[in-house]
């Protein structure tokens, strides 16, 4: 069964810590995404990547960075965690697949991060 795996379901970190959220997909997908999900705000795109070593900012990149050294792995980095980054973080991957476009995203189960 193909999947997107996020390394941690729950994380608690202290303010000012550097935090790494890891995401691995086994579908050979070109595209990977990081979203955060907050009540009433839906999913907001933080960063995405179309290829290895490529990255593009989404709608809310401030305070975050990403790394994609290998096709299957996409890491989200909180440079200095703050309490307003307490959230559910969702990783997703997708492929163009066919000429008509995307088959949609495959999501990981999410990482609930609490910054204290």
């Amino acid at each position, binding site marked *: 069964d193909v999947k997107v795996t996020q390394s941690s379901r729950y994380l608690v970190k202290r303010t000012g810590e550097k935090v790494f959220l890891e995401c691995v997909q086994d579908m050979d997908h070109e*595209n990977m995404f990081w979203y955060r999900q907050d009540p009433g705000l*839906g*999913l907001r795109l933080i960063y*995405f990547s179309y290829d290895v070593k490529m990255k593009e900012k*989404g709608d809310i990149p401030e305070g975050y960075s990403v790394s994609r050294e290998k096709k299957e792995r996409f890491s989200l980095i909180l440079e200095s965690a703050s309490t307003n980054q307490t959230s559910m973080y969702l990783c997703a991957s*997708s492929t163009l697949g066919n000429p008509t476009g*995307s088959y949609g*995203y495959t*999501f990981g189960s*999410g990482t609930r991060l609490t910054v204290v």
Partner: protein
Amino acid sequence: AQSVTQPDIHITVSEGASLELRCNYSYGATPYLFWYVQSPGQGLQLLLKYFSGDTLVQGIKGFEAEFKRSQSSFNLRKPSVHWSDAAEYFCAVGASRGNQFYFGTGTSLTVIP
């Protein structure tokens, strides 16, 4: 700019009743449209998608959705709701640039016995 509106934040239905969740989108070209479901504490699962062709699409778990270009809508329906359908539902539209999607803010569904 692309956007998705889900006007209903929360809906409560009785088990066995019919369900319709609304989704309106703003997009300059023919959109790629999706519905996802999220059970508590879980990631999002794809229910169904529309790319082209027949405007009524069937998905998993007995769900269907109808694309209406004139109304810029892609409403999700189910004829008879089960208690296990209680979840958060997200509508999404595909962007022209690569595979970036735009999500609505979600509709929370409660099913009462």
